[in-house]
C-alpha cells in the first residue's frame, strides 16, 4: 500500500488514498482510514508513471485522466521493478543519484572544460583563421586605426628622414617575406601609451615615436617589425576574435539554462584565461622573428636589446630622467635606466602579475633571444 493523493482530473479536489497493486498487476485504491478497497482497478501496463527526479513527487496517470501523486519514490520504484522489465526507466535517476558517478563526471567535466579552453578553442580558431581569406581579417580591421587615432594617438613628430629610412627597411623586409603585400607601416605619437608597437588586423603596423626614440640602430627596430609581422602572418587578431566568441558560446552552452546576465558573470573569470591566449601568441610571434633573424644573419641580440629598452622605458627612472632633462634625450635616459635596472636592489623578481599582463614574462622572452645568439 502506497500513501498518496488522488485527483480525478476534472476538478482540483484532493483526496488522500492508498494505492495497492495485487499479484496479477492490477492497480486500485483503498480508503486511508480502514484500508477498505474502493471500486475499479486498472492493469499496470495501462498507466504512465513519471520518471524519478531527485525526491520530487511521482505521478501515476490513469487512462481516464485521473492521477495519483505520492512522495514515496522508493515504493514506486519497487513497483516498477516488480511489474515492468524496463531497463531505461529510472536510468537517468540512477546516474543522477550515484555519488561516484556524479563525482567522476564533475571532475572530468572540469578537466574537459580546461583542456577545451586551453587547447581545443585555440587550435580550432587557428584552423578556421588559416582557412579564411585575408579579406576577412581586413574586414575585421576596418576602422581600428581611426578609433585608435581618435582615442590614443597623436600625429607623429618624427623627422621625414627617419620615417623614410624605416619605411625603406620595412619594404626590404617585405620583399623577403611571402604574402606580405598588404602590410603597411605607419608612425604615430603614442602620448600616454608610451613606447609600443601594434599589429592591426588589416595589415597595418603602428610604431610610436617613443619606441623609435629609444634607439639609433634601425636594425633593432627591424627586429620589432619582424615580431609584429609574425602577429600578422599568423593572423592573431582574427584568431583572438574567433577564440573570444567561441569561448562565450562554450560558456553559455555549459551553464546553459540560466539567464543572460548571470552567464556574463560566469564568463568573467575566463578573462584571465583569455589573456593567456595572447601570451601564447606573443611566443609565436617571437618564434617567427627569431627564425627569420637566424636565417637572414641578423643577430637575435638586436631583439633582446630592444626588449630590454622597452621594459625600462616604463620604469620610474626613465620617466624621471626625461622629466628633468627636458631635452627629450631618450637615449641617454634609457642608458641610465638600463644601468639602474642592472643593480640588484632594483631588480624585480618574477612577479605574480606576469600572468595577468598581455606582454608577460619579458625576462623569459629576452633570455630566449640571448640564448639563441
Amino acid at each position, binding site marked *: 500500500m502506497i500513501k498518496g*493523493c*488522488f*485527483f*480525478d*482530473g*476534472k*476538478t*482540483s*479536489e*484532493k*483526496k488522500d*488514498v492508498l494505492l495497492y497493486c495485487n499479484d496479477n498487476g492490477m492497480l486500485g*485504491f483503498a*480508503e486511508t482510514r480502514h484500508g477498505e478497497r*474502493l*471500486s*475499479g*482497478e*486498472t492493469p499496470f501496463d495501462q498507466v504512465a508513471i*513519471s520518471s524519478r*527526479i*531527485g*525526491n*520530487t*513527487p511521482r*505521478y501515476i496517470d*490513469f*487512462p*481516464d*485522466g*485521473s*492521477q495519483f*501523486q505520492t512522495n514515496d519514490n522508493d515504493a514506486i520504484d519497487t513497483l516498477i521493478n516488480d511489474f515492468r522489465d524496463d531497463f531505461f526507466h529510472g536510468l*537517468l535517476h540512477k*546516474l*543522477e*543519484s550515484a555519488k561516484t558517478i*556524479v563525482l567522476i*563526471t*564533475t571532475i*572530468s*567535466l*572540469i578537466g*574537459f*572544460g580546461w583542456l577545451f579552453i586551453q587547447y581545443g578553442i585555440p587550435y580550432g580558431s587557428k584552423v578556421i583563421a588559416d582557412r579564411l581569406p585575408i579579406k576577412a581579417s581586413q574586414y575585421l580591421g576596418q576602422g581600428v586605426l581611426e578609433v585608435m587615432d581618435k582615442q590614443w594617438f597623436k600625429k607623429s613628430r618624427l623627422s621625414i628622414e627617419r620615417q623614410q629610412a624605416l619605411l625603406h627597411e620595412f619594404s626590404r623586409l617585405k620583399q623577403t617575406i611571402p604574402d606580405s603585400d598588404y602590410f603597411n607601416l605607419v608612425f604615430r605619437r603614442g602620448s600616454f601609451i608610451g613606447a609600443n608597437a601594434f599589429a592591426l588586423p588589416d595589415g597595418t603596423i603602428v610604431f610610436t615615436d617613443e619606441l623609435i626614440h629609444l634607439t639609433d640602430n634601425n636594425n633593432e627596430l627591424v627586429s620589432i617589425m619582424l615580431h609584429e609581422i609574425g602577429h600578422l602572418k599568423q593572423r592573431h587578431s582574427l584568431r583572438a576574435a574567433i577564440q573570444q566568441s567561441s569561448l562565450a558560446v562554450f*560558456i553559455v*552552452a*555549459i*551553464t*546553459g*539554462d*540560466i539567464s*543572460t546576465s*548571470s552567464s556574463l*558573470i*560566469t564568463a*568573467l*573569470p*575566463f578573462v584571465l584565461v583569455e589573456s593567456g591566449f595572447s601570451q601564447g601568441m606573443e611566443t609565436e610571434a617571437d618564434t617567427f622573428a627569431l627564425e627569420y633573424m637566424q636565417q637572414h644573419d641578423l643577430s637575435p641580440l638586436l631583439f633582446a636589446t630592444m626588449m630590454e629598452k622597452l621594459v625600462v622605458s616604463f620604469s620610474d627612472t626613465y620617466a624621471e630622467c626625461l622629466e628633468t632633462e627636458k631635452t627629450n634625450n631618450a637615449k641617454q635616459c634609457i642608458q641610465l635606466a638600463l644601468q639602474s635596472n642592472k643593480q640588484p636592489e632594483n631588480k624585480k623578481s618574477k612577479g605574480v602579475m606576469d600572468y595577468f599582463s598581455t606582454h608577460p614574462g619579458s625576462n623569459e622572452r629576452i633570455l630566449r633571444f640571448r640564448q639563441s645568439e
Partner: protein
Amino acid sequence: MQNNPTGVVPDSVNNTITNKHFKFTGKGLEYFSIWIVNVVLTILTLGIYSAWAKVRTNQYFYGNTFLDGSSFRYTAKPLQILKGRIIATILFAIYYFTTIANPIVAGIILIIIMLFVPAFVVMAMSFRLRNSQYRNVHFNFDKNFSQAYKVFFIPLIFVGCYLFLIGQAEHLQPGDREQSGNAIFGLLILGVMLGIFVMVPWWEFIVTRFKATHAKYGQADFSFSATLKNYYGMYLKALLLSIIIFGLLGAGIFTLQKTQPDEQSQLLFASMMSIFVFPAYLWLFAYFQTKRTNLLFGNLSINGHHVRSEMTTGRLLMLYITNTLAIMLTFGLLMPWAKVRTANYKASITSLDVAGELNQFVTSQEQQQSAMGEEIGEMFDLDLGF
C-alpha cells in the same frame, strides 16, 4: 473505468481565509547531480539532449514547489521542445549569416521577426502554462492573438522607429553633422527616445496585464488589480532614487578628488572611487526587481484567492551578491546551488490567501501547444513569460 474513490464532492463553501505559503524543497547538492548529468549528456549528444535537460530541470523545480501539500508539475514533452529548438536554431542561423553577408536583408528579417513577437509571446505563454499542472488541473493561456497585437502595436512602432533612425545615423558621415538637416534628424531620435522613456511604465503595465488576465488555471481566469498609477509610481521612485544616489556619489567623488595634488592621482582616485558605483547599481537593481515582483504577484488573484508577495530589497540583494560571488569563484560550478537558493527564496516570500478551499477549480479541455514560440523567444532573447 471509473476511479472515484469517495464520490463525495465537498459542498461546504467555507469562506474563512487562510494564508498558505509556497514551499520549495529542492536541495543544492541534489540539483547539482541532475545538472551535471544534464551538462555531460548535452555535450555527448552535441546538444540534442538539451531538450530533455530542460524538461528534467523544470520538472525538478516544479516538483519541489509545494502549495497546500501538493506540488506543481511540468508536463512538456522533450520531443516538442527539441522540434521547437531545431526550428529556432535554423531561423537564428539564417539571421546570423545574413547579418554578415547582407545587412539589409538581415534588417528585413529582423523586422519580420519583430512583427511576429506578439504571436510568439502568446505561443510561449500558452506552451508554458499549458504544461504547468497543479492537482491534475493544468494552467492555460487564452490565445487571443488580436488582443496581443493591439497591446504590442505602439511599442513595436516606437522600437521600430528607433532602430530605423539609429540605422540611418550610422550612414551619416562625420562631416555631415554640421548640416541643418542633421539637427532635425538628431531631434527626431531624441524625441523617439524620450517617447520610449515616458511610455515604458505604461507598456510594462499593459503587457503584464495582458499576460496576467489571459492566464487561467483550469477554467478560472486570473485577475490583476495593479493600476497604471502603481507602475508610474514605481518607475518614478526608482528614477528619483537613482538620481539621488548617483548624484550624491558623483558629487562626493568629484569634491574628494579635488583634495588630490596632481591630475594623475586625481584620475586614479576617481577610478578607485568608482568601485562604489557597482554596489549602488546592484542595490538599485535589487530594489527595482523587488518592487516589480511584489507589484506583479501581489496583485494576482484567482477565484477570490489572493497571491501575496513579500520580497524585500535587502534579502534579494544579499542573494544576488552571494550567488554572483559563488558562481564567479567556482567558474559556474555553484550555479545549481545558486538556482536552488533563488527558488527557495522566491517560494518563501510568496503565499496565497486561500478563501475556503482550493478544491473547486474545474479542468478545461485544450489542445497541446507547439513549443516553437517559446524556443524562438529564447533564441532571440525575448523576455517571455512572467
